[in-house]
């Protein structure tokens, strides 16, 4: 581990190969959804990588390793739970789309987009309708990428509210 902290890539590879099966089983025993096991295992390895410098070579490896593993499993599961609460599975989405068959905007979406403030509408049009990248759109509007992200985010929020109200 001391070699790993000094940046020895071969020692690092060997170490990860040695602890890999152990950690994979550890994750598998704690994550009940088998589909999530690879994602969580990946998360554990990445966290281990970021925390590797906190290991003290004079101390036993086990407590350090399993504390990192246990906490990163909990973090990953917590994040997944939060995500699952907000996620709408594609099977439950309505059949109808805001886009018409020819790819043009539907009336509802068109009206909602028109009722947005100009700066928000502009941001959404460039990013979603014209398909520009963040950099390209920001250059066209002569604003920073961060400012563009804020405008687009606010625009989406307004758009969502408008569409929900219309549905009601």
């Amino acid at each position, binding site marked *: 581990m001391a070699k790993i*902290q000094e940046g020895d890539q071969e020692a690092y*590879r060997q170490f990860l190969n040695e602890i890999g099966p152990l950690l994979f089983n550890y994750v598998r025993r704690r994550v009940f959804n088998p589909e999530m096991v690879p*994602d969580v295992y990946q998360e554990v390895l990445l966290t281990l990588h970021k925390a590797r410098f*906190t290991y003290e070579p004079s101390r036993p490896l086990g407590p350090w390793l399993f504390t990192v593993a246990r906490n990163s499993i909990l973090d990953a599961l917590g994040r997944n739970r939060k995500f699952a609460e907000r996620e709408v599975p594609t099977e439950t989405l309505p059949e109808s789309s805001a886009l018409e068959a020819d790819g043009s905007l539907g009336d509802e979406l068109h009206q909602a987009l028109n009722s947005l403030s100009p700066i928000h509408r502009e941001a959404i049009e460039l990013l979603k309708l014209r398909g520009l990248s963040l950099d390209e759109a920001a250059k066209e509007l002569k604003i920073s990428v961060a400012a563009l992200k804020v405008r687009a985010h606010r625009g989406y929020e307004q758009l969502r509210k408008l569409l929900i109200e219309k549905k009601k």
Partner: protein
Amino acid sequence: MKTHKTAKTKQTPLEFHNRIVDQVVHEAKPKGIHVQPATQWLLWLAASLLVMAFFWMHWGVQANVSQVMQQMPPLFFILSAFAGASLAAWEAITSSIPGRQTGKLYRVLAVLVLIALVSIPFIFFVHPGSLDLGKALVNGTGCAEGAAFSGLIPWIFMGWMLSRNASFHPWWTGLWSGVSAFLMGTITIQIHCPSWDMDHVLMTHLLPAAVGTIFASLLGAFWFSRWKK
């Protein structure tokens, strides 16, 4: 470091493992030396005592401090504040290093010391005729500011140290770092200020430590989780 969210492919666990290993090994660069927790604690102590000494030289200490410290209640108050700060600093440091967390007994001990600290003014210090905590705060804003300011500097130092560790419970680390640093502020101001009245001590020496702790906990939740990003 960028995260790699491409886990769900039809790979065997071994192939999958090898792919992640390739990614992380590629980014294995040497990091600076990680300071051991005991050394971090000593550094915090030295820095806090230096800050304390600086403020005492700048503001002065109460005239009869040696006589006051011969009485039990003030002495216990200062000692329990120091013990509380030291225990809290160790809790903050170890909570931010995987595998070094303290046990429940240690945390119970730290909380008991803090309860004793807050109880001492109620039990032993001079009670005013009519208790007006608001008035005590207004009359002692100088002390409150001094306590907060002299705690803030050790906290910034401690925060910098803790941000180089890897806390999985950043708000908890922040909370205990706040207790440790701002109690040092309480000691600094208590040695400077000649008033040992209950309401004054509670509102202008201890309350800033409590407020500082909340602030440290909130800010710590953000600051001490940055290592994961």
